């Protein structure tokens, strides 16, 4: 039988092979997305060791739950970042300590070193997508960025954001709503 060249397969095909317990497929998926998963976890928990554990947990969960993945509901990258975000926020909640207080921010918009992910085309496409989203977030007013960051990176509800910032609940709701609407418009138009 001809060996499968996993690097030529798309993400959904890799997940199907992972569901069949093929470790080479998991290895390829890890190579494609470890950077994205780890970066998100690190940005939320702010601790290298904890972020590495979360990254391990995310890919272990993919290994165990690949059979439940539904391609029509979310892209593989979305599935991975969604697990990573929830795991990271869960770690924060279990610690019940927020050492950084409310200081959490969005990534810098300035160009950064881009790690190689998969083939050069994928790396370039990911880099372009990153810059698009960062540029869109950069266009939000500072007060909208602040409430959105607390909701997204810390998993705060409206009420928790309101308490953390000492702002009226209605103001927080409006700012989150306006921020998401503006991002939707900016990211859809391009």
């Amino acid at each position: 039988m001809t060996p499968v060249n996993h690097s030529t397969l798309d993400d959904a095909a890799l997940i199907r092979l992972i569901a069949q317990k093929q470790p080479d497929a998991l290895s390829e998926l890890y190579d494609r997305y470890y950077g994205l998963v780890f970066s998100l976890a690190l940005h939320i928990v702010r601790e290298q060791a904890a972020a590495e554990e979360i990254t391990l947990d995310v890919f272990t969960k993919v290994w165990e739950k690949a059979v439940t993945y539904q391609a029509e509901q979310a892209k593989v990258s979305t599935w991975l970042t969604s697990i990573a975000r929830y795991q990271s926020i869960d770690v924060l909640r279990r610690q019940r300590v927020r050492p950084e207080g409310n200081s959490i921010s969005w990534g810098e918009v300035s160009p950064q070193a881009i790690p190689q992910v998969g083939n050069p085309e994928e790396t370039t496409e990911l880099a372009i997508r990153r810059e698009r989203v960062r540029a869109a977030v950069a266009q939000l007013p500072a007060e909208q960025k602040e409430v959105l960051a607390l909701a997204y990176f810390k998993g705060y509800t409206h009420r928790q954001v309101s308490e953390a910032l000492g702002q009226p609940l209605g103001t927080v709701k409006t700012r989150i709503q306006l921020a998401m609407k503006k991002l939707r418009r900016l990211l859809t138009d391009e």
Partner: protein
Amino acid sequence: MPSPEQIIELLPAYVLDALDEEEKQMVAEYLAACQLCQAELRTYQATFEQLALTVPEATPSPALKDRLMARIQPTLPTTQPIQTRASWRQSLASFLPRLGPVWGIVSLVLIVFLIVSNLLLWQQFSQRAEPVMQVVNLVGTEQAPNAHGVIVITDDGQRGRLVVEGLPPLGPQQQYQLWLVKDDQRDSGVVFPVTEDGFWSGTIESPEPLTNYPHFDVSVEPEGGSTSPTGAPVLNSGS
């Protein structure tokens, strides 16, 4: 009972999981029966999904991958199931010839039974066709290239809602007007303003079922609307 507009206003926080439990449950229940809300939800989910890309890139320890592969090692399948399957097949293969002509008759009966039951199931599903709402996408013309919208029409065509976004703000004496187009006939669907960011959502009023109209467009009209379009379309549903 909340209106679709109230639910749509909560959707940005819903995708962020920033609602209180009570609000979250209310939105989840409402979403199940509101196609317009589901369409809106998908657009916010697409935005939400991209937020992970904003964080600065970081790299874990190179040994992390080895730890992952070591962690899954105990769960790798052994060759045991394959051997089991081979012996099961062998047993069956040796058993079937002994059934002889009986096996042939049983197979034939089974095949006929499967064909008949499939036909019956197919008939049942055909009769049970679920009512489906119709969704019409509106795209911005040269006058408003950043605008877009959607019209959701009920299965019977009697009711419809319009959602637009990205339309340019208007002067105080102007409003947008939706036109329902059929042959040379243009009926007014609704006259509406937009928010600062060009958003509006509301009910369409139609003299006849909306499903009778193959085309829709939106133009800028004097405040209160016109009896027929006076401005070029800013949104249309294509051909």
